[in-house]
């Protein structure tokens, strides 16, 4: 069964662009575009990995992270911050709250994302290099 990735992301263009290579790699990609519906969406979708933005309408992504890591049902889900708001304070705070990694949107290109996800999920990245025994 395909692993599920949830984007908590309000930017339509960003989500469209960055979900294409993940879908092409066979992941099931879903999205919560409203910060307030994010936790509910996580409880319904039960994703294997969450990409979480910080600047969201009406709510701060770090508050969502805190909520997810405090709930027994969701604290085991891997959460990667994916944001353009990469101040040192935010990175430190996110890691303290239990984020698994912190990516800056402007430093990540979509074609690299599937390999990063594979590594985070403990799968073998598709490097294009085949090892023949």
């Amino acid at each position: 069964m395909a692993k599920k990735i949830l984007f908590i992301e309000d930017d339509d263009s960003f989500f469209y662009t960055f979900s294409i290579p993940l879908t092409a790699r066979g992941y099931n990609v879903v999205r919560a575009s409203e910060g307030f519906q994010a936790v509910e969406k996580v409880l319904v979708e039960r994703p294997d990995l969450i990409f979480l933005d910080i600047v969201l309408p009406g709510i701060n992504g770090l508050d969502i992270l805190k909520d997810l890591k405090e709930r027994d049902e969701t604290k085991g889900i891997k959460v990667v911050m994916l944001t353009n708001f990469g101040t040192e304070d935010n990175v430190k705070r996110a890691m303290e709250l239990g984020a698994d990694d912190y990516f800056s949107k402007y430093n990540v290109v979509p074609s690299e994302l599937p390999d990063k996800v594979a590594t985070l999920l403990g799968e073998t990245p598709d490097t294009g290099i085949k090892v023949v025994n």
Partner: protein
Amino acid sequence: MPILEILLLVLSVAQVIFLVLIVYLYTRKSQEVGNLHKENAELRVKTSMSDSPDVLDYDYISMLVHELRSPLSVIKGASDLIIKEAPTLTKEQIEMLLAQIRNSSGNLLNLVNDILDVSKMNAGRFEIKKISNNLPSLIKETASYIEPLLRVKSINLNIEVNGDIPTFNFDAERIRQVLNNLLSNAIKFTPKDGDITVVAKRRGDIAEVQVKDTGGGIPDDEKPKIFHKFVQVHNNTMMKEKGTGLGLVISKGIVEAHGGKIWVEDNKPKGALFVFTLPVETAGGYK
């Protein structure tokens, strides 16, 4: 696919030009910020100024950089995807990615123009060109441009223009910018199926324009602050509802450059009522 390659080349060049422009503007802005900070600190020592909403600070610059990075991330990401993955993408996906690049470039350009306008206002170099124009026509024309945005939220727009507003001298492009800012804000805060009303009328020697929405309204303690720079950031660093907050600052600058006033009231029974006035001058015609 030669057309696609040409498009990509053009977009890549445009991206580089944008990036250079952004870096240049940001560097200039940073230098100004540094100087302003220094001057501000000195002023505070001298006059014991309390915290002003006009202060350019680290929080504001962080938010501005975030707003610049958002469209840039999409431009960079979508072009990277087309260059590296073109053979695996469908025609529709490529067209959609190119549309994302075009839209994000437009957003970036608007933001850069806003930053430049505020810089000009700060430096006292903001100029308007007052020539004979028709305000009711401009209101109707501006409304027609935002029609697609209204349709998305099924918002009903009513325009009530009194027939006694004469043709008078104002900068049509700049007043269009004010109308756009006020209408965009009204759409942003009005819920689905809500109403927006624009009223234009003459009161003696001034023309008055009202933009009424049926959103959540502006709390009383925020009303005096919203036309000042960067107040949104001071209120909440990480929430996006209010964007950069530059639109109202620029609108105030434009209206005041015409000799008019702009303010906000409560719209009864619900929402916000933005009002701006312009002096009705028919003689001369150039400032």
